[in-house]
């Protein structure tokens, strides 16, 4: 039974907090796996880790009856999104490594129940400047909540299908992508209509009609660059002009892009992309030059989290029961189990 569970285990999302020495992973059982990664942050001169590495999660916290689809970290909270609700978990609570920890707050989505049932939250993004949390919802909308009050601030409603992911850019910029194949750039001060619409499937160098037009992932960096991918190949766009800058791997015609994101939000230094074919994770430059091809245990990678607060740390997760840990952006160091002993 345990073996079967581990085989069918899937991690959808991850969050790092180097300040608290924690790595969180949300899985398909509605649990948050909490890893103590203090030791990975005590680096030696060469960037290696001297001490013992964690083998598996310290504790698994029950977060929802539904899978934990999305997760984002703010300085004080880890915010998880599942079906119908958002939950905020205080890092200090999680640090106790206690299974019985409960969320500091929850927000229920006010969705149109008659049409969509309970909408799931596919993606979360946190804007530290405006202290807003953005949720990409299954009811074709992206919602912005004020972290302070938990009130719904604005609703971005222009997608023609469910929203896959949402990303923030600067203090007021928001980018969302969805199953309808559109990448919408918003100014949340005027949330009625998107500022710009990019349709990657209309770019001849990106389009892969056999896979569809959906855009699974979107990310921005430096307020200038946007990367997205899904059915169409992953590509880098200039955020203001909407022009295509580069095409990224995976370059074969049969691999849907599941992850395309910048490693850092503040500067467009490198991009991480991954697909569904077991080809691992590609780290590329802004021009599409592959600098590293990392193997991943997960055949289909759903989540790549990178943090640079104290040291470089990148974790790769997806299907299967291992999370790959990289101590830099060049090669894999080791992998963690997602099964609690």
């Amino acid at each position: 039974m345990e073996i079967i569970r581990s085989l069918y285990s899937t991690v959808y999302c991850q969050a790092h907090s180097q300040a608290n020495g924690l790595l969180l992973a949300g899985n398909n059982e509605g649990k948050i796996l909490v890893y103590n990664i203090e030791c990975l942050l005590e680096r030696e001169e060469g960037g290696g880790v001297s001490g013992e590495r964690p083998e598996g999660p310290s504790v698994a916290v029950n977060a929802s009856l539904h899978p934990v689809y999305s997760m984002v970290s703010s300085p004080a909270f880890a915010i998880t999104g599942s079906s119908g609700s958002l939950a905020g978990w205080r890092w200090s609570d999680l640090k106790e490594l206690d299974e019985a920890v409960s969320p500091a707050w929850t927000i229920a989505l006010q969705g149109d129940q008659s049409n969509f049932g309970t909408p799931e939250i596919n993606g979360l993004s946190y804007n530290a400047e405006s202290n807003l949390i953005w949720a990409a919802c299954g009811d074709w909308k992206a919602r912005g909540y004020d972290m302070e009050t938990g009130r719904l601030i604005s609703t971005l409603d222009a997608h023609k299908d469910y929203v896959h992911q949402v990303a923030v850019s600067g203090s007021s910029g928001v980018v969302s992508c969805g199953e309808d194949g559109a990448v919408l750039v918003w100014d949340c001060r005027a949330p009625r209509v998107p500022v710009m619409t990019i349709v990657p499937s209309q770019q001849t160098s990106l389009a892969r009609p056999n896979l569809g037009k959906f855009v699974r992932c979107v990310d921005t960096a430096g307020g200038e660059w946007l990367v997205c991918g899904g059915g169409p190949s992953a590509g880098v766009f200039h955020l203001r002009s909407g022009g295509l800058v580069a095409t990224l791997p995976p370059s074969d015609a049969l691999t849907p892009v599941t992850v395309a994101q910048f490693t850092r939000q503040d500067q467009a230094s490198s991009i991480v992309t991954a697909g569904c074919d077991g080809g691992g994770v590609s780290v590329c430059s802004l021009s599409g030059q592959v600098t590293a091809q990392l193997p991943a245990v997960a055949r289909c990678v759903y989540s790549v989290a990178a943090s640079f607060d104290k040291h470089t740390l990148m974790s790769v997760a997806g299907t299967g029961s291992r999370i790959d840990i990289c101590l830099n952006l060049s090669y894999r160091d080791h992998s963690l189990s997602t099964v609690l002993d």
Partner: protein
Amino acid sequence: MSHDNIYYSILEKLPGCTLSGDIGPLASILEGKISEPIKVCVETAVRFYVMENLCVGHSTDLGKITAVCQLTCELARQELCLPTLPMLVISDAFDSLTVQQCEKLFSFVEANVSIWKEPLFFAPSKNQVLRMCNDVLRRLSRSQNTIFCGRILLFLARFFPFSERSGLNLISEFNLENVTTYSANENDDAMDVSEVKEDSVSEAKEEKKDESKPALDPTLYSKFWALQDFFRNPIQCYQKEPWRLFTSYTADVLEAFSSFKLESEGRGGAEDGKVSSAPRFYNDVTQLSSDADTTIIDSLPDVKKIDQYFAKFLTNKRLLELQFSDSNFRRYVLVQLLILCHYLTAAIKFKQESLGEGETAWVRATEEKVFGLLMETPPDGEEFAEIIKKILKREDFWNDWKNSGCPEIKEPAPAPPANVHGVKNEDDSKQLKKGKKRKLGDLIREAEARKKFIMANPEMTRLWNLCPDNIAATRQKKRDFIPSLEDYFIKAVEQIHCEEEPVTERLVYDSDFGWRGLRLLACRSPHFFTQSTAPIATLPEYLTTMIKKLAKDIPGISSKLQQFQEKLESQQKKKQEKSQVQAENVKPKEEEKIPEESENCEEEPNDDENDRVELHPITDEERLALATKLAALGGDKWRLLLTKLGFQDDEVQYIFDKKKSKVQDTVLHFLQLWVENEAEEANKETIVYTLGGLKMQDVAESVFH
């Protein structure tokens, strides 16, 4: 003279002799009384002199030492001292000099390697040379005096014969002293730390068992450098536990290499030829100091750019990141891995252990993976991988040679000399043909013995061997294309003799004819070289005089001329008109004309010469009529005519038989032939004339009216 006296007098004379380079005074001391003790005495004296007077620290005059050495060489040649003396002098000097001075003095040793290799010196002093070189080597630091070390090794390689065993690592020992140390944390896995320190492997294992904690996953850094220990001592890999570590470390390192892509210098932003400024540290691969020690660096395509050598790896943790992004470093490590893999699977006599099936498969898979990585490591990865493959292949030959006990290497034995007896030779070649393919060299040698040639294909060979001697071939009669004087000049002679012809149309006025004529005269006629008092005015005039001379000389020409004149006369008679024979037209073009054409010409008004001979070809009807007449005449009259027309009796008979003895057909046949052969000459007039000669005018008249 007592030995003491000899000793002292040598010491006395030696400085002078050294300066002059003359051994005369020394030889005079010894007075030809040479015995073994005296030689030893000489040796002692010279060595004492060198040690006491010449080797004086920094101010040593190396020139004097080399002079003494040369002097002793001369003495040894005169058998006035032992042949070991020169080397003893040199090695004494090496023992007492500084490394810098040694380096200078060594160039003298290098320069005179031919002297040391002389039979007189080689056998007695070879051990001394070896000892001396090893002593110097021991004093040197391999990293500081790399070049000097290399020079010494090269000298030894030149000095000893190729198959000298003393330089070989016969039993495939490993240089276990070449330990790569790297900083390992005390808290870290005891295994790795102890391994790289000089503890033995077994001790490390015990230690590990004592702690009985699960093998932790060491960082890439320690995994990476721990691999060097396997390269240092590959025997470890045959033990179970080290093998497990080795495979896991290798897999991790290779994974890191394959994930960490290197940018080639030409790629990315460096399209303008800007060379990437990636730092280049490191080093060599002399980890396996055994037979596997190949100098890969030399074969690097880009070695000119980065001709760097480091005796040891730099293992600082901070460098690892840079090292991983350095393609050269990556190559070193990958090649080390290949060498190890090669060793593990190679057949080596002194290797007791061997790998299991699964382990061998792993080695093969790893080799493949490493070659894949080498190929994708810029710059020129694929080329580099190919070179390495070839070098590793060479290792197999080396191993074979060592496994078979290092047999002396000889030049390939010359093939057995070609057999003198032709018959036997053929037998041999038959045998060989049945057996395997013969060597090309043998074939050529055999062919040469028979003065034949062998070409690329049989047809060429056949053609070439028609006449193997090319010069002889050119001397063959049928290759002589120069016409005889007679043939060439006959027409010109005729023209000169029948004075009616216009002078300017004569052949001699044709410049082509003239030039060829001169060449021919030069080849064939003595007249060409006779001195003539008359200066040569023009070529035609000269030729005319020459031709006249020739006409007198050559019977062929004169007789033909006579015939011709006879013919001319008879024709003149026949036509009863002022005849002017223009038997042959001046221009060769006209000569070639067929009778029909000349008939046409006939009708044209001859503008400058209206008295041109009218020639009438024989028509078919006339020929038939003539043949019928002749047949009717009966007898052998027809044969006479045919003979006159220039046909041989036997051919006439042959055709006659063939035509079933029908005279008419035979005559017709030959007339046809005659017309074909003679063209213009075969005209009515000729045949009438001929018939007249045969007293058959009536026949002629009846046919030709």
